[in-house]
């Protein structure tokens, strides 16, 4: 039911030079611990790419490097390049704040701002960037909440506190909040890991709908979820990229033995 109508791209020769976002020899560490050991990965535009792998393989660190959040942790270092539309986002002339407007993030546990209402949470990114026009804010809020499939449930009570919602609704609120600033890429770090199957299904539905306008990169522990929502899949292990390809390829005809072992559950 969920996976049935997803079109997985048959373009096996997708050219990594036209990728929306790509990494080149990306290394990252926390103090002395090297978490990413040189990742070369390209994310196709307007597609959903899943990053999967066992705990500790570096997938969360990888996406945190993509929007330059990793470097904010004390003792964290990043080396290598991450290219967005051909520009290295780690070059000194690039403003990290501007990058984070273009590459948004949804976190593992929903984190709506507790002092704000649903409406205020949704437009928080815009309001804090200086947008004041009430009509614009109303429109953006409605559009973002619709895209996150939350509008119908909250439209009558937008003044309710953001934390008064259920877990799944809070996560959709966080998605709406990320959408409101109109990024080009959305990073999702195991967005459904704390949610029940029904809430998960709603979010997966929205992910599939969102890829028309955004490039989505989703870290997931859940192989079935990767199979359901993603077009491309990357498999990581111990800080290295083991395999990358279309989801059907990686799941049905994995090239690496390690991938095959993971998919068939021999470890994980």
């Amino acid at each position: 039911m969920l996976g049935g109508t997803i079109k997985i791209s048959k373009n096996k020769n997708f050219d990594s030079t036209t990728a929306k976002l790509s990494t080149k020899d990306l290394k990252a560490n926390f103090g002395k611990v090297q978490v990413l050991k040189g990742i070369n990965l390209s994310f196709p535009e307007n597609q959903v790419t899943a990053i999967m792998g066992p705990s500790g393989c570096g997938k969360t660190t990888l996406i945190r490097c993509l929007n330059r959040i990793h470097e904010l942790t004390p003792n964290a270092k990043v080396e290598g390049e991450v290219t967005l539309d051909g520009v290295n986002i780690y070059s000194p002339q690039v403003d990290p704040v501007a990058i984070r407007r273009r590459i948004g993030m949804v976190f593992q546990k929903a984190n709506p701002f507790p002092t704000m209402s649903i409406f205020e949470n949704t437009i928080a990114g815009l309001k804090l960037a200086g947008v004041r026009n009430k009509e614009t804010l109303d429109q953006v809020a409605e559009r973002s909440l619709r895209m996150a499939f939350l509008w119908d449930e909250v439209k009558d009570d937008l003044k309710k506190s953001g934390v008064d919602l259920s877990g799944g609704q809070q996560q959709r609120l966080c998605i709406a909040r990320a959408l409101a600033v109109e990024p080009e890429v959305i990073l999702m770090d195991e967005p459904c890991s704390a949610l029940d199957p029904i809430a998960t299904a709603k979010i997966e539905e929205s992910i599939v709908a969102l890829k028309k306008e955004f490039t989505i990169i989703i870290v997931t522990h859940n192989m079935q979820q990767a199979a359901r929502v993603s077009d491309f899949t990357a498999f990581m292990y111990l800080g290295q990229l083991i395999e990358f390809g279309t989801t059907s390829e990686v799941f049905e005809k994995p090239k690496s033995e390690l991938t095959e072992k993971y998919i068939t559950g021999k470890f994980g």
Partner: protein
Amino acid sequence: MATKYNLPASISLQRKIVNKLMTVLVIIAVALAIIPLILILGDVFMRGAPALSIGFLARAQNPLHVSSGGIANAIVGTFTMVGIAALISVPIGIGAGIFFSEWSNSKLSTFSGFMNDVLTGFPSIVLGLFVYVIIVLPSKQFSAFAGGIALSFVMLPIIARTTGESLKLVPMTLREASLALGIPRWKTVLRIVISTGKNGLLTGILLAVARATGETAPILLTASTSIYFAKSIFQPTASMTVLIYNYATSPYPSQQTQAWGAALVLILIMLALNLLVKLTVGRKIKGARMYA
């Protein structure tokens, strides 16, 4: 045969007795803590109520006929000095608190945090002495201004520490959520972190104000005392605490009654401040419901 999973009845009874005993001890502890407070409040109320009247609050001291005078100049003096102190210590204290919380990894933060805590416990008379030497002596003048400065030294470390601790309690994930929206760090701190931690901030400011309002020693050395309204902040001024000190040790019963009246007014002001903060800030930030 008693298996290891069945407690014999005697142990179960023993545990119940110890439980009860501990509960009683804890209740006694609470009573011991609260009873003195209630007794003091009751005592002050009974001794001070006879002195209260509108005139008491609205008129300045009358040295010639004490009981027709009031404590208005002392009330104004206290408010003025605490006001000056707050104007100085609140912005600086909150700034320092932000530094303690957002740059908690730096050596400067650890060092200045330590110095801050030392300052919190400083004998306030020493703070008064310091201001006496650097402001009162050179200006050859006791003043409300000097009193305000001295009180700001009392308030500053309290505000800095409570602000720092309140902001540290704001989860890191909220900062990351804000940064991930492309909001710069300073805005994240000012708009998201502070507003989430504002209960703690306001409580800290209240604590500091309450502490400063009740200080006597630093005011003695800086603002001294006066029986008139101060015409400018660069003149000596009366204050409630010094007035209580002067009147309570005087031989005249009318002054002693007024001292109790002033003490009562002081306590009522504290209660009112507490209530004010509870009403405006006291709504708890609603906890997040975690799962559907």
